[in-house]
């Protein structure tokens, strides 16, 4: 499994991941387009650093929506996952909810664009 640390994609002196353009920038720098189709890397885990206070759906969609489009929901879930690196359970729960929001929005957009269910 390949692990990707997302720390550098938080804004300068920020504790958050925000903005679709920032997510797209991260996608480009991390070559996610290549990873999507790279069969030698079957699983990728994104590491959300400790002290993160929010992982907004805008960033999530910028980072991963194109992968949803390319792979479809099932293959996407097989390939990509997140690890929240904090021991604070409250923060973990909040960031998990953020990720759920991002995933839900991605699925809604996917349905709207493809008409698939």
């Amino acid at each position, binding site marked *: 499994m390949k692990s990707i640390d997302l720390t550098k994609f938080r804004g300068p002196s920020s504790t*958050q991941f925000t903005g679709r353009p920032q997510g797209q920038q991260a996608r480009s720098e991390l070559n996610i387009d290549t990873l999507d189709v790279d069969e030698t890397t079957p699983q990728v885990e994104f590491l959300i650093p400790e002290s993160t206070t929010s992982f907004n759906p805008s960033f999530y969609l910028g980072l991963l929506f194109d992968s949803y489009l390319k792979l479809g929901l099932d293959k996407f879930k097989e390939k990509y996952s997140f690890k929240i690196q904090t021991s604070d359970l409250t*923060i973990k729960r909040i960031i998990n909810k953020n990720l759920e929001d991002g995933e839900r929005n991605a699925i809604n957009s996917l349905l*709207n664009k493809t008409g698939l269910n």
Partner: protein
Amino acid sequence: MSYFYIQGSTSKDLLDILLGIVSPMVLIILFGFERYYSSQQKRKDIKLLDIKNQKDVERTWYLEVLVRPIIGILSSFYRNTSDAFEEQVVELELLRKKGTPVNNYNAEIAIMCGKFAGEKRKIELEVIAPINALYPIVGEELTECLHELEDLYTTGLDSKNSQLAIDQFKNSLPTNKTILLRHLYTPLKVDKAT
């Protein structure tokens, strides 16, 4: 008799006879054309009227069923968001002044962001989901507006300059609301082509 009459006629007489026969025929043909053209035009007008009526019905339905019930919800949401943001920024400033440890301070920001996300989810459920079912493009635009608002909210909480954060947020909030409402009203626009 007529044979002799024709035999004795001049070419001018013959032309008069011919014109006497052709003129009514031309009139009948022109009348027929005019009737055909006007009936086609009428049919086209009725079709356009049907489309216009259908669109009017659809617009009225959208306004009454989807828009009117949520206007109050959206106004409250924006008002509460503005109040909550200001309160939370002041609260965070107090925590900074008290010298709260970074981990606790960050946890507090996360909780505040989480509260906003909870309110945003209610809007997604009550406002956007019903619209998204029939008007997916509008639904997408509304969702995008909420994402932008969430970004403004969370980055504002992350700022260490309270007054600047409040000013920036309060300046951006009306624009965000206007853009959201503009997208919401898109299906109500009258198409000038019809």
